[in-house]
Protein backbone atom coordinates (compact mmCIF):
# COMPACT_ATOMS: atom_id res chain seq x y z
CA UNK A 1 0.00 0.00 0.00
CA UNK A 2 1.48 3.37 -1.03
CA UNK A 3 0.60 5.70 1.81
CA UNK A 4 1.43 9.24 0.87
CA UNK A 5 3.06 9.12 -2.48
CA UNK A 6 2.78 8.12 -6.10
CA UNK A 7 6.00 7.55 -7.97
CA UNK A 8 6.03 8.75 -11.52
CA UNK A 9 9.69 9.07 -12.50
CA UNK A 10 9.52 5.63 -14.13
CA UNK A 11 7.38 7.13 -16.92
CA UNK A 12 10.09 9.60 -17.99
CA UNK A 13 12.58 9.01 -20.83
CA UNK A 14 15.99 7.64 -19.71
CA UNK A 15 17.98 10.87 -20.36
CA UNK A 16 15.45 13.02 -18.57
CA UNK A 17 15.35 10.58 -15.67
CA UNK A 18 19.16 10.76 -15.28
CA UNK A 19 19.03 14.58 -15.30
CA UNK A 20 16.24 14.51 -12.72
CA UNK A 21 18.20 12.15 -10.44
CA UNK A 22 21.30 14.37 -10.73
CA UNK A 23 19.24 17.43 -9.79
CA UNK A 24 17.62 15.54 -6.91
CA UNK A 25 20.98 14.35 -5.55
CA UNK A 26 22.45 17.89 -5.70
CA UNK A 27 19.39 19.21 -3.86
CA UNK A 28 19.75 16.51 -1.18
CA UNK A 29 23.40 17.52 -0.64
CA UNK A 30 22.58 21.26 -0.57
CA UNK A 31 19.65 20.82 1.83
CA UNK A 32 21.64 18.41 4.01
CA UNK A 33 24.51 20.90 4.27
CA UNK A 34 22.19 23.86 4.93
CA UNK A 35 20.40 21.91 7.67
CA UNK A 36 23.68 20.89 9.32
CA UNK A 37 25.20 24.40 9.16
CA UNK A 38 21.93 25.91 10.39
CA UNK A 39 21.80 23.52 13.36
CA UNK A 40 25.42 24.31 14.32
CA UNK A 41 24.71 28.08 14.17
CA UNK A 42 21.48 27.71 16.18
CA UNK A 43 23.33 25.64 18.80
CA UNK A 44 26.04 28.29 19.22
CA UNK A 45 23.44 31.07 19.38
CA UNK A 46 21.40 29.14 21.97
CA UNK A 47 24.38 28.20 24.13
CA UNK A 48 25.77 31.74 24.14
CA UNK A 49 22.62 33.20 25.74
CA UNK A 50 23.52 34.37 29.23
CA UNK A 51 20.95 34.63 32.00
CA UNK A 52 20.21 38.21 33.03
CA UNK A 53 21.04 38.78 36.69
CA UNK A 54 18.19 40.64 38.37
CA UNK A 55 16.77 41.19 41.85
CA UNK A 56 13.39 39.47 42.23
CA UNK A 57 11.55 42.82 42.51
CA UNK A 58 12.63 43.83 38.99
CA UNK A 59 11.24 40.75 37.23
CA UNK A 60 7.99 41.53 35.43
CA UNK A 61 5.95 40.34 32.44
CA UNK A 62 8.49 41.87 30.03
CA UNK A 63 10.84 39.04 30.99
CA UNK A 64 8.42 36.20 30.15
CA UNK A 65 10.31 33.60 28.12
CA UNK A 66 13.71 35.01 29.04
CA UNK A 67 16.44 33.43 31.11
CA UNK A 68 17.11 35.19 34.43
CA UNK A 69 19.15 34.61 37.58
CA UNK A 70 17.73 35.92 40.82
CA UNK A 71 17.76 35.20 44.52
CA UNK A 72 15.20 35.07 47.30
CA UNK A 73 14.44 33.35 50.54
CA UNK A 74 11.90 30.54 50.76
CA UNK A 75 8.68 31.69 52.44
CA UNK A 76 6.47 28.73 51.61
CA UNK A 77 6.73 25.25 50.12
CA UNK A 78 4.03 22.92 48.86
CA UNK A 79 4.34 19.31 47.75
CA UNK A 80 2.11 18.05 44.92
CA UNK A 81 0.79 14.44 45.01
CA UNK A 82 2.68 13.78 41.73
CA UNK A 83 5.99 14.53 43.48
CA UNK A 84 6.47 18.13 42.35
CA UNK A 85 7.64 20.76 44.84
CA UNK A 86 6.39 24.34 44.57
CA UNK A 87 8.50 26.96 46.36
CA UNK A 88 7.51 30.56 46.98
CA UNK A 89 10.50 32.86 47.27
CA UNK A 90 10.49 36.48 48.43
CA UNK A 91 12.76 39.38 47.56
CA UNK A 92 15.53 40.02 50.12
CA UNK A 93 14.67 43.70 50.57
CA UNK A 94 11.06 44.07 49.44
CA UNK A 95 9.49 41.17 51.27
CA UNK A 96 6.04 41.54 49.72
CA UNK A 97 7.49 40.75 46.26
CA UNK A 98 7.11 36.99 45.87
CA UNK A 99 7.38 34.50 43.04
CA UNK A 100 6.81 30.78 42.62
CA UNK A 101 9.62 28.37 41.67
CA UNK A 102 8.13 25.04 40.48
CA UNK A 103 10.48 22.06 40.87
CA UNK A 104 8.94 19.21 38.90
CA UNK A 105 9.38 15.57 39.96
CA UNK A 106 11.88 14.80 37.18
CA UNK A 107 13.89 17.88 38.04
CA UNK A 108 13.93 16.95 41.75
CA UNK A 109 15.33 13.54 40.76
CA UNK A 110 18.14 15.22 38.82
CA UNK A 111 18.92 17.42 41.88
CA UNK A 112 19.62 14.24 43.86
CA UNK A 113 22.61 13.66 41.55
CA UNK A 114 24.23 16.77 43.03
CA UNK A 115 23.18 15.80 46.56
CA UNK A 116 20.25 18.18 46.90
CA UNK A 117 17.21 16.56 48.51
CA UNK A 118 13.66 18.00 48.59
CA UNK A 119 14.03 18.29 52.39
CA UNK A 120 16.93 20.76 51.88
CA UNK A 121 14.42 23.40 50.74
CA UNK A 122 13.56 24.76 54.18
CA UNK A 123 11.55 27.93 54.72
CA UNK A 124 13.86 30.83 55.51
CA UNK A 125 16.75 29.52 53.36
CA UNK A 126 17.99 31.76 50.58
CA UNK A 127 18.44 30.30 47.11
CA UNK A 128 19.91 31.62 43.87
CA UNK A 129 17.83 30.36 40.99
CA UNK A 130 18.39 30.56 37.24
CA UNK A 131 15.44 29.79 34.99
CA UNK A 132 12.99 30.84 32.36
CA UNK A 133 10.36 33.36 33.41
CA UNK A 134 6.94 31.87 32.78
CA UNK A 135 3.39 33.12 33.28
CA UNK A 136 0.96 30.67 34.87
CA UNK A 137 -2.58 31.63 35.86
CA UNK A 138 -1.70 35.32 35.69
CA UNK A 139 1.30 34.91 38.06
CA UNK A 140 4.97 34.85 37.19
CA UNK A 141 7.15 31.82 37.87
CA UNK A 142 10.82 31.06 37.45
CA UNK A 143 11.28 27.58 36.02
CA UNK A 144 14.79 26.12 36.53
CA UNK A 145 15.89 23.74 33.76
CA UNK A 146 19.00 21.92 35.01
CA UNK A 147 20.46 20.96 38.42
CA UNK A 148 23.10 23.75 38.41
CA UNK A 149 20.24 26.29 38.11
CA UNK A 150 19.64 25.96 41.89
CA UNK A 151 22.21 27.12 44.42
CA UNK A 152 21.87 27.56 48.17
CA UNK A 153 23.32 30.66 49.76
CA UNK A 154 25.33 29.63 52.82
CA UNK A 155 23.82 30.94 56.07
Amino acid sequence: MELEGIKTTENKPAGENKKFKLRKNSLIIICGLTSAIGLVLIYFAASSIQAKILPLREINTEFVGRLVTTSGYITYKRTHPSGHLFLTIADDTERNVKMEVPLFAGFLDSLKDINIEPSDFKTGRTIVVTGTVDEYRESLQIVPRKPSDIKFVLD
Partner: protein
Amino acid sequence: MINLLLTILLLAAAGVGIGLFAGIVPGMHINTLIPLLLSFVFLFGLQPQEIAVLIVATGISEIFFNFIPSIFLGAPEADTALSVLPGHRLLIEGRGYEAIKLTVIGGIGALIASLLVIFVFASGFQFVYELSRPYIHFAIIAVVCFMILSEKKLRKILASILILGLSGLLGIFVLESSLLPQQQTLLPVLSGLFGLSILIISISERSSIPEQTNSTDVKISTKEILRAIILGSVAGIVVGFLPAIGISEAATIVQYAGGTGEARSFLVTISGINVGNEVFSLMSLYLVGNPRSGASVAIQSVMNELTFYDVILLVGVICLAAGAAAVLTLWLGKKLPRLLARINYKKLTLSVIIFLVAMVFAMTGFLGLLVLVTSTSIGILCNYLEIRRSHCMGCLLIPTILFFSGLNPLIISILNF
Protein backbone atom coordinates in the same frame (compact mmCIF):
# COMPACT_ATOMS: atom_id res chain seq x y z
CA MET B 1 -31.59 36.41 28.01
CA ILE B 2 -32.00 37.57 24.40
CA ASN B 3 -29.06 39.94 24.90
CA LEU B 4 -26.90 37.07 26.16
CA LEU B 5 -27.92 34.89 23.23
CA LEU B 6 -27.15 37.67 20.76
CA THR B 7 -23.75 38.29 22.38
CA ILE B 8 -22.91 34.58 22.12
CA LEU B 9 -24.02 34.46 18.48
CA LEU B 10 -21.99 37.57 17.68
CA LEU B 11 -18.90 36.20 19.42
CA ALA B 12 -19.28 32.83 17.70
CA ALA B 13 -19.52 34.63 14.33
CA ALA B 14 -16.41 36.70 15.21
CA GLY B 15 -14.64 33.46 16.16
CA VAL B 16 -15.51 31.92 12.78
CA GLY B 17 -14.14 35.08 11.10
CA ILE B 18 -10.87 34.87 13.04
CA GLY B 19 -10.77 31.11 12.36
CA LEU B 20 -11.11 31.85 8.64
CA PHE B 21 -8.14 34.22 8.81
CA ALA B 22 -6.04 31.76 10.84
CA GLY B 23 -7.08 28.87 8.62
CA ILE B 24 -6.49 30.25 5.16
CA VAL B 25 -3.35 32.30 5.82
CA PRO B 26 -0.46 29.81 5.58
CA GLY B 27 1.67 29.72 8.71
CA MET B 28 -0.98 31.44 10.81
CA HIS B 29 -2.33 29.46 13.76
CA ILE B 30 -4.72 30.09 16.62
CA ASN B 31 -1.75 29.80 19.05
CA THR B 32 -0.07 32.72 17.24
CA LEU B 33 -3.24 34.80 17.48
CA ILE B 34 -4.25 33.98 21.08
CA PRO B 35 -1.95 36.48 22.91
CA LEU B 36 -3.14 39.22 20.55
CA LEU B 37 -6.75 38.08 20.88
CA LEU B 38 -6.64 38.02 24.69
CA SER B 39 -5.16 41.50 24.99
CA PHE B 40 -7.75 42.77 22.52
CA VAL B 41 -10.83 41.20 24.16
CA PHE B 42 -9.91 42.64 27.56
CA LEU B 43 -10.23 46.10 25.98
CA PHE B 44 -13.88 45.29 25.22
CA GLY B 45 -14.45 44.18 28.82
CA LEU B 46 -15.69 40.71 27.81
CA GLN B 47 -16.59 38.25 30.57
CA PRO B 48 -14.47 35.04 30.93
CA GLN B 49 -17.28 32.90 29.50
CA GLU B 50 -17.61 35.19 26.49
CA ILE B 51 -13.86 35.03 25.84
CA ALA B 52 -14.08 31.22 26.01
CA VAL B 53 -16.90 31.29 23.40
CA LEU B 54 -14.69 33.35 21.06
CA ILE B 55 -11.68 31.02 21.54
CA VAL B 56 -13.72 27.83 21.04
CA ALA B 57 -15.40 29.17 17.87
CA THR B 58 -12.00 30.24 16.48
CA GLY B 59 -10.37 26.90 17.34
CA ILE B 60 -12.99 24.63 15.78
CA SER B 61 -13.61 26.71 12.64
CA GLU B 62 -9.88 27.04 11.93
CA ILE B 63 -9.71 23.23 11.58
CA PHE B 64 -12.22 23.31 8.67
CA PHE B 65 -10.63 26.31 6.90
CA ASN B 66 -7.11 24.86 7.25
CA PHE B 67 -7.85 22.36 4.50
CA ILE B 68 -8.41 25.11 1.91
CA PRO B 69 -4.75 26.22 1.55
CA SER B 70 -3.44 22.72 2.18
CA ILE B 71 -5.42 21.43 -0.82
CA PHE B 72 -5.30 24.42 -3.18
CA LEU B 73 -1.74 25.59 -2.51
CA GLY B 74 1.57 23.78 -2.79
CA ALA B 75 0.57 21.03 -5.24
CA PRO B 76 3.57 19.82 -7.26
CA GLU B 77 3.49 18.86 -10.96
CA ALA B 78 2.24 15.28 -11.30
CA ASP B 79 4.96 14.28 -13.76
CA THR B 80 7.89 15.37 -11.59
CA ALA B 81 6.54 14.86 -8.11
CA LEU B 82 7.89 11.96 -6.12
CA SER B 83 5.33 12.15 -3.39
CA VAL B 84 1.95 13.79 -3.63
CA LEU B 85 -0.30 14.39 -0.64
CA PRO B 86 -3.83 12.91 -0.98
CA GLY B 87 -5.48 16.36 -1.21
CA HIS B 88 -3.03 17.44 -3.91
CA ARG B 89 -3.59 14.14 -5.74
CA LEU B 90 -7.31 14.93 -6.14
CA LEU B 91 -6.50 18.56 -7.09
CA ILE B 92 -4.16 17.33 -9.83
CA GLU B 93 -7.02 15.09 -11.07
CA GLY B 94 -9.23 18.21 -11.22
CA ARG B 95 -11.24 17.16 -8.15
CA GLY B 96 -10.15 19.80 -5.62
CA TYR B 97 -13.76 20.50 -4.59
CA GLU B 98 -14.33 16.80 -3.89
CA ALA B 99 -11.25 16.86 -1.61
CA ILE B 100 -12.70 19.86 0.27
CA LYS B 101 -16.13 18.19 0.50
CA LEU B 102 -14.58 15.00 1.92
CA THR B 103 -12.79 16.97 4.67
CA VAL B 104 -16.06 18.72 5.55
CA ILE B 105 -17.94 15.39 5.69
CA GLY B 106 -15.16 13.93 7.85
CA GLY B 107 -15.14 16.99 10.10
CA ILE B 108 -18.88 17.15 10.74
CA GLY B 109 -19.14 13.36 11.12
CA ALA B 110 -16.25 13.32 13.59
CA LEU B 111 -17.77 16.22 15.52
CA ILE B 112 -20.91 14.15 16.17
CA ALA B 113 -18.97 10.93 16.81
CA SER B 114 -16.39 12.50 19.15
CA LEU B 115 -19.05 14.36 21.17
CA LEU B 116 -20.90 11.04 21.60
CA VAL B 117 -17.70 9.23 22.66
CA ILE B 118 -16.74 12.07 25.03
CA PHE B 119 -20.17 12.16 26.72
CA VAL B 120 -20.35 8.37 27.09
CA PHE B 121 -16.85 8.04 28.54
CA ALA B 122 -16.55 11.47 30.23
CA SER B 123 -16.06 10.08 33.73
CA GLY B 124 -13.30 7.67 32.64
CA PHE B 125 -10.95 10.16 30.95
CA GLN B 126 -9.47 11.56 34.18
CA PHE B 127 -8.64 8.02 35.42
CA VAL B 128 -7.02 6.95 32.12
CA TYR B 129 -5.14 10.26 31.91
CA GLU B 130 -3.63 9.97 35.40
CA LEU B 131 -2.86 6.29 34.86
CA SER B 132 -1.10 6.87 31.54
CA ARG B 133 0.99 9.95 32.46
CA PRO B 134 4.04 8.13 33.91
CA TYR B 135 4.22 5.94 30.79
CA ILE B 136 3.50 8.55 28.13
CA HIS B 137 7.10 8.66 26.87
CA PHE B 138 7.00 4.90 26.22
CA ALA B 139 3.84 5.37 24.14
CA ILE B 140 5.51 8.17 22.16
CA ILE B 141 8.67 6.06 21.62
CA ALA B 142 6.45 3.22 20.33
CA VAL B 143 4.76 5.62 17.89
CA VAL B 144 8.16 6.92 16.70
CA CYS B 145 9.42 3.35 16.12
CA PHE B 146 6.23 2.52 14.24
CA MET B 147 6.64 5.63 12.06
CA ILE B 148 10.22 4.67 11.19
CA LEU B 149 9.53 1.01 10.49
CA SER B 150 6.45 1.81 8.40
CA GLU B 151 8.83 3.11 5.71
CA LYS B 152 9.69 -0.60 5.13
CA LYS B 153 12.76 -0.20 2.83
CA LEU B 154 16.15 0.09 4.58
CA ARG B 155 17.13 3.24 2.63
CA LYS B 156 13.91 4.95 3.65
CA ILE B 157 14.20 3.76 7.25
CA LEU B 158 17.69 5.32 7.46
CA ALA B 159 16.41 8.49 5.79
CA SER B 160 13.54 8.76 8.27
CA ILE B 161 15.96 8.33 11.21
CA LEU B 162 18.05 11.17 9.71
CA ILE B 163 15.03 13.50 9.38
CA LEU B 164 13.74 12.60 12.87
CA GLY B 165 17.23 13.27 14.25
CA LEU B 166 17.68 16.61 12.46
CA SER B 167 14.22 17.90 13.33
CA GLY B 168 14.59 16.51 16.88
CA LEU B 169 17.85 18.43 17.37
CA LEU B 170 16.20 21.56 16.01
CA GLY B 171 13.32 21.09 18.47
CA ILE B 172 15.69 20.61 21.42
CA PHE B 173 17.80 23.67 20.52
CA VAL B 174 14.77 25.91 20.09
CA LEU B 175 12.44 24.61 22.82
CA GLU B 176 15.02 24.06 25.57
CA SER B 177 16.80 27.41 25.15
CA SER B 178 15.50 30.96 25.36
CA LEU B 179 16.57 31.67 21.79
CA LEU B 180 13.14 32.86 20.59
CA PRO B 181 10.22 34.67 22.27
CA GLN B 182 8.24 32.09 24.26
CA GLN B 183 4.88 32.52 22.50
CA GLN B 184 6.42 32.24 19.03
CA THR B 185 8.95 29.46 19.59
CA LEU B 186 7.28 27.04 17.21
CA LEU B 187 6.36 29.55 14.49
CA PRO B 188 9.63 29.39 12.46
CA VAL B 189 10.08 25.67 13.16
CA LEU B 190 6.66 24.53 11.92
CA SER B 191 6.41 27.18 9.17
CA GLY B 192 9.66 25.89 7.67
CA LEU B 193 9.09 22.16 8.08
CA PHE B 194 5.45 22.09 6.94
CA GLY B 195 4.84 25.37 5.10
CA LEU B 196 7.72 27.09 3.36
CA SER B 197 9.41 23.86 2.22
CA ILE B 198 6.23 22.69 0.45
CA LEU B 199 5.68 26.11 -1.15
CA ILE B 200 9.30 26.32 -2.41
CA ILE B 201 9.07 22.87 -4.01
CA SER B 202 5.74 23.85 -5.53
CA ILE B 203 6.97 27.18 -6.96
CA SER B 204 9.88 25.47 -8.68
CA GLU B 205 7.53 23.06 -10.42
CA ARG B 206 4.03 24.40 -10.97
CA SER B 207 2.87 27.38 -12.99
CA SER B 208 -0.91 27.11 -12.58
CA ILE B 209 -3.68 25.37 -10.67
CA PRO B 210 -4.79 22.27 -12.58
CA GLU B 211 -8.11 22.66 -14.42
CA GLN B 212 -10.98 21.63 -12.15
CA THR B 213 -14.14 19.69 -13.03
CA ASN B 214 -17.63 20.98 -12.18
CA SER B 215 -18.58 17.69 -10.53
CA THR B 216 -19.75 17.93 -6.91
CA ASP B 217 -20.18 14.21 -6.18
CA VAL B 218 -17.89 12.19 -3.94
CA LYS B 219 -16.53 8.87 -5.20
CA ILE B 220 -16.55 6.95 -1.95
CA SER B 221 -19.12 4.62 -0.39
CA THR B 222 -21.13 5.57 2.73
CA LYS B 223 -19.67 2.54 4.51
CA GLU B 224 -16.12 3.76 3.82
CA ILE B 225 -17.05 7.26 5.03
CA LEU B 226 -18.53 5.94 8.29
CA ARG B 227 -15.50 3.75 8.93
CA ALA B 228 -13.11 6.64 8.29
CA ILE B 229 -15.16 8.97 10.54
CA ILE B 230 -15.25 6.53 13.47
CA LEU B 231 -11.54 5.68 13.18
CA GLY B 232 -10.66 9.36 12.76
CA SER B 233 -12.61 10.66 15.73
CA VAL B 234 -11.38 7.91 18.10
CA ALA B 235 -7.78 8.47 16.91
CA GLY B 236 -8.28 12.23 17.39
CA ILE B 237 -9.30 11.72 21.03
CA VAL B 238 -6.28 9.42 21.60
CA VAL B 239 -4.02 12.10 20.07
CA GLY B 240 -5.49 14.52 22.61
CA PHE B 241 -4.08 12.30 25.38
CA LEU B 242 -0.60 11.92 23.96
CA PRO B 243 1.51 15.09 23.92
CA ALA B 244 3.46 15.80 20.70
CA ILE B 245 1.79 12.97 18.80
CA GLY B 246 0.45 14.82 15.82
CA ILE B 247 -2.40 14.31 13.43
CA SER B 248 -0.12 12.86 10.74
CA GLU B 249 1.34 10.18 13.06
CA ALA B 250 -2.18 9.16 14.08
CA ALA B 251 -3.24 9.14 10.42
CA THR B 252 -0.34 6.83 9.51
CA ILE B 253 -1.29 4.36 12.24
CA VAL B 254 -4.97 4.49 11.29
CA GLN B 255 -4.03 3.95 7.62
CA TYR B 256 -2.25 0.72 8.55
CA ALA B 257 -4.65 -0.47 11.24
CA GLY B 258 -7.86 0.50 9.47
CA GLY B 259 -6.81 0.27 5.84
CA THR B 260 -7.80 3.84 5.04
CA GLY B 261 -4.87 4.40 2.68
CA GLU B 262 -6.91 5.46 -0.35
CA ALA B 263 -6.81 9.25 -0.93
CA ARG B 264 -10.55 9.81 -0.36
CA SER B 265 -10.91 7.82 2.87
CA PHE B 266 -7.58 9.33 4.02
CA LEU B 267 -9.04 12.85 3.69
CA VAL B 268 -12.16 11.90 5.68
CA THR B 269 -9.96 10.22 8.33
CA ILE B 270 -7.47 13.08 8.69
CA SER B 271 -10.26 15.62 8.98
CA GLY B 272 -11.91 13.36 11.58
CA ILE B 273 -8.67 13.14 13.58
CA ASN B 274 -8.28 16.93 13.46
CA VAL B 275 -11.83 17.59 14.68
CA GLY B 276 -11.81 14.77 17.29
CA ASN B 277 -8.54 16.08 18.67
CA GLU B 278 -9.77 19.69 18.74
CA VAL B 279 -13.06 18.79 20.48
CA PHE B 280 -11.19 16.74 23.12
CA SER B 281 -8.56 19.49 23.60
CA LEU B 282 -11.21 22.17 24.03
CA MET B 283 -13.00 20.00 26.59
CA SER B 284 -9.79 18.80 28.28
CA LEU B 285 -10.04 21.27 31.17
CA TYR B 286 -13.33 19.65 32.17
CA LEU B 287 -12.42 16.08 31.23
CA VAL B 288 -8.89 15.66 32.62
CA GLY B 289 -8.39 18.90 34.55
CA ASN B 290 -5.49 19.90 32.31
CA PRO B 291 -5.28 22.00 29.15
CA ARG B 292 -4.21 19.97 26.10
CA SER B 293 -3.83 22.71 23.46
CA GLY B 294 -3.00 26.39 23.07
CA ALA B 295 -6.72 27.22 22.93
CA SER B 296 -7.49 25.31 26.15
CA VAL B 297 -4.53 27.01 27.91
CA ALA B 298 -6.11 30.33 26.92
CA ILE B 299 -9.51 29.18 28.25
CA GLN B 300 -7.85 28.12 31.50
CA SER B 301 -6.13 31.49 31.83
CA VAL B 302 -9.50 33.26 31.83
CA MET B 303 -11.79 30.69 33.46
CA ASN B 304 -9.54 28.53 35.71
CA GLU B 305 -12.05 25.66 35.58
CA LEU B 306 -15.13 24.68 33.61
CA THR B 307 -18.47 23.85 35.18
CA PHE B 308 -21.00 21.47 33.58
CA TYR B 309 -23.02 24.51 32.48
CA ASP B 310 -19.94 25.99 30.75
CA VAL B 311 -19.35 22.69 28.96
CA ILE B 312 -22.92 22.62 27.62
CA LEU B 313 -22.54 26.22 26.42
CA LEU B 314 -19.18 25.49 24.74
CA VAL B 315 -20.47 22.30 23.07
CA GLY B 316 -23.31 24.40 21.61
CA VAL B 317 -20.80 26.95 20.33
CA ILE B 318 -18.60 24.18 18.88
CA CYS B 319 -21.58 22.79 16.91
CA LEU B 320 -22.68 26.23 15.74
CA ALA B 321 -19.21 27.36 14.67
CA ALA B 322 -18.42 24.00 13.01
CA GLY B 323 -21.68 24.19 11.02
CA ALA B 324 -20.96 27.74 9.85
CA ALA B 325 -17.35 26.89 9.03
CA ALA B 326 -18.43 23.79 7.06
CA VAL B 327 -20.87 25.79 4.89
CA LEU B 328 -18.29 28.55 4.33
CA THR B 329 -15.55 26.02 3.49
CA LEU B 330 -17.76 24.33 0.87
CA TRP B 331 -18.65 27.72 -0.63
CA LEU B 332 -15.00 28.76 -0.79
CA GLY B 333 -14.04 25.35 -2.18
CA LYS B 334 -16.39 26.01 -5.12
CA LYS B 335 -15.39 29.62 -5.73
CA LEU B 336 -11.64 29.44 -5.15
CA PRO B 337 -10.54 27.29 -8.14
CA ARG B 338 -12.17 29.76 -10.56
CA LEU B 339 -10.57 32.68 -8.75
CA LEU B 340 -7.18 30.96 -8.52
CA ALA B 341 -7.29 30.02 -12.23
CA ARG B 342 -7.27 33.73 -13.05
CA ILE B 343 -4.34 34.43 -10.74
CA ASN B 344 -0.73 33.69 -11.64
CA TYR B 345 -0.03 30.66 -9.43
CA LYS B 346 3.71 31.34 -9.15
CA LYS B 347 3.07 34.94 -8.11
CA LEU B 348 0.47 33.81 -5.56
CA THR B 349 2.81 31.19 -4.07
CA LEU B 350 5.67 33.70 -4.07
CA SER B 351 3.55 36.28 -2.22
CA VAL B 352 2.61 33.64 0.39
CA ILE B 353 6.32 32.80 0.78
CA ILE B 354 7.20 36.50 1.22
CA PHE B 355 4.34 36.91 3.73
CA LEU B 356 5.51 33.89 5.76
CA VAL B 357 9.14 35.07 5.85
CA ALA B 358 8.08 38.63 6.78
CA MET B 359 5.79 37.33 9.54
CA VAL B 360 8.53 35.13 11.01
CA PHE B 361 11.00 38.02 10.89
CA ALA B 362 8.53 40.45 12.50
CA MET B 363 7.74 38.05 15.34
CA THR B 364 11.08 36.35 15.95
CA GLY B 365 13.80 38.53 14.37
CA PHE B 366 17.03 37.35 12.71
CA LEU B 367 17.37 34.29 14.96
CA GLY B 368 13.87 33.24 13.88
CA LEU B 369 14.96 33.58 10.23
CA LEU B 370 17.96 31.33 10.93
CA VAL B 371 15.61 28.74 12.43
CA LEU B 372 13.25 29.15 9.43
CA VAL B 373 16.05 28.56 6.88
CA THR B 374 17.17 25.45 8.78
CA SER B 375 13.67 24.01 9.20
CA THR B 376 12.86 24.71 5.53
CA SER B 377 16.02 22.86 4.46
CA ILE B 378 15.04 19.86 6.60
CA GLY B 379 11.52 19.96 5.08
CA ILE B 380 12.87 20.04 1.50
CA LEU B 381 15.40 17.30 2.35
CA CYS B 382 12.54 15.14 3.63
CA ASN B 383 10.71 15.61 0.33
CA TYR B 384 13.70 14.62 -1.82
CA LEU B 385 14.49 11.63 0.39
CA GLU B 386 10.97 10.44 -0.54
CA ILE B 387 9.77 9.76 3.00
CA ARG B 388 6.69 10.92 4.87
CA ARG B 389 6.76 14.53 6.00
CA SER B 390 5.39 13.49 9.42
CA HIS B 391 8.97 12.47 10.38
CA CYS B 392 9.60 16.22 10.69
CA MET B 393 7.40 16.05 13.82
CA GLY B 394 10.62 14.90 15.52
CA CYS B 395 10.91 18.59 16.44
CA LEU B 396 8.16 18.01 19.04
CA LEU B 397 8.40 14.26 19.61
CA ILE B 398 12.05 14.13 20.74
CA PRO B 399 11.81 17.06 23.24
CA THR B 400 8.56 15.56 24.61
CA ILE B 401 10.16 12.13 25.12
CA LEU B 402 13.05 13.84 26.96
CA PHE B 403 10.61 15.85 29.12
CA PHE B 404 8.43 12.91 30.17
CA SER B 405 11.39 10.59 30.75
CA GLY B 406 12.95 13.24 33.02
CA LEU B 407 16.07 13.43 30.84
CA ASN B 408 15.80 17.06 29.79
CA PRO B 409 17.75 18.54 32.79
CA LEU B 410 20.65 16.25 31.83
CA ILE B 411 20.44 17.20 28.15
CA ILE B 412 20.30 20.92 28.99
CA SER B 413 23.38 20.50 31.22
CA ILE B 414 25.27 18.65 28.44
CA LEU B 415 24.29 21.25 25.85
CA ASN B 416 25.23 24.05 28.26
CA PHE B 417 22.00 26.02 27.66
